C-alpha cells in the first residue's frame, strides 16, 4: 500500500487489521488510541469522516461510543491491499 493513502483510510485499515469488523468486536476511541498510538482528536476527526462515508458504523448505545467497520468498509480495505 502506498505512502500516499489518506490518514483516515490508514485508520480504517488499522481498525480492520485489529479486528473491529463486527458489533461484538467494536472499539472505543480510547481503545483505538491505545492500538494505533494516534492522537484522540485525530481519531475522532477521521472516525467522523469514515462514518459519513459509510465505512464505519458507530454504536451509540453505551456511554462512550464504539466503532466497527461496515461491509463497505471491509471492501474498501481490501481494495487498498489488493
Amino acid at each position, binding site marked *: 500500500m502506498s505512502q500516499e493513502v489518506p490518514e483516515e483510510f490508514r485508520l480504517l485499515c488499522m481498525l480492520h487489521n485489529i479486528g473491529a469488523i463486527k458489533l461484538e468486536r467494536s472499539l472505543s476511541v480510547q481503545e483505538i488510541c491505545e*492500538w494505533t498510538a494516534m492522537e484522540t482528536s485525530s481519531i475522532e476527526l477521521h472516525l467522523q469522516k469514515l462514518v459519513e462515508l459509510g465505512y464505519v458504523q458507530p454504536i451509540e448505545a453505551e456511554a462512550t461510543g464504539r466503532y466497527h467497520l461496515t461491509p463497505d468498509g471491509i471492501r474498501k480495505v481490501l*481494495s487498498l491491499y489488493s
Partner: protein
Amino acid sequence: MLTWEFPPRIVGGIARHCEGLAKALAHLGHEVHVFTLDFPGAPDYEEMNGVKVYRTVTELGHPNFLTWALLFNHFLEKRLGSVSQQVKFDVVHVHDWLSAPAGVSFKYGVKKPLVLTVHSTEIGRAQGLHTPDSRAIDGMEWWATYEANKVIVTSGSMKGEICGHFNLPDDKIRIIPNAIDSTNYHASIDRESIRRRYGIGSNEKLVLCVGRLVPQKGIEHLIHAVPNIVWRHPEAKIVIVGEGWLKGHLEYLARSSGHGWKIRFTGFLPDSEMIALMTSADVLVVPSIYEPFGIVALEGMAAGVPVVASYIGGLAEVVEHDRTGILVYSKNPESIAWGVDRVLSDPGHSHWLTENARKMIQKTYSWEGIAKKTLEVYKEVK
C-alpha cells in the same frame, strides 16, 4: 483451496477466480474445500454449488497489515488442521502470498503437494518496493514460489515477470488464464432504464470504466483523455465504477478537467448491477498501467461491449487489436481518446469486434476448460 477473499468477501479478481475455479472443479466431480476469512453476514460454513466453504474468524489482530496477515494465517492453518482430521486432502492450492504461510505449513504437516497461483506481484502492484513491508511481501512471494511444487500464472506476461524477478525455473510455471461464466452476462435488461439511472440520455454515449481506484488501474489517464473524447463526441459521458484510496484525487482531477459534470463515480456496485451497466455501455475502457491478466476486459467482451484496453501485460494477450477489441498505449490520454473514437465512430466495426470477442471467450475462457487445465497441474504434482 486457500484464499483471503471469497464471495461475499469480494473486491478484486481473486475472489471471482477462486469461486469460478472451485465451482468448476466441483462440477467435474472433485471434492473442493475452500478456506477463507469471515465476512459480516456470511456463515462460518456453507456449501456453494458443491464447494465446501469454511470462513475463519481471525481472533487476534494488529494494526500492521503484515502482522495481521501472519495472524490470520495461523487461524486458517488451525481450521485447516481441524478439518483435515476428517478429510483426506490430495493437494493444497494457495492464491497469492496472503495465504501462503498456512499453505506451506500444511504442505509439510500432511506431506501433500502445494500449488500456488500468483495473481500479481508486490513489485508490480506498488510499481516498485518502496517500504519495508513491501520488501517483506516481495520476500514472502519469492518464498511461496520456492516452496510451491508448481506455480500457476494467468498470462505469459506474468510468467516473464516472476521468472525474471524470482529467478524461477521455466518448467516450474504453468500458464492458465482466468475465465468467466459468460452465462451471467446473458440476462435480458432494460438498457434505457439502466442508462437513465446513471444520467445517460437516449442520444448520449456511455463510456464505462470498471476497476479499483488505485494507481495501477490508470484511471487518471482516462480522465485526462476526457476533453479529447468529448471534443470528438460531445454526446459522451463517462461512468467510473469502483472503490479505492485514490478516489478523492480522481474526483479532483475530474472536476479540474473542465468536464466534471460529464464524469460520474458510482463507488462499489454489486455484480448484478455492474453486469447490467456493462451490458448497457457503448464502450468499456481499461486504461491500466499494470495488469497481470485483466479479467475486466473479458467481462466486457462477455457483456457484448467493445473494449478499449492498454497494450500492457495480460491485457495485450486477452485483447487482439482490431479483432476482439482496441489496444491503446498505456499512460497515453491521446491514444485512449483515439481508441474510444475508433469504437464510437464506427458502430459496424464495433459490432464486428464484439461478435469476435464473444466467440473467442466461449472457445478459450470457460471455467470448465480452465478447471481441466488446473487438474492437469494437480496430477503433475501428485
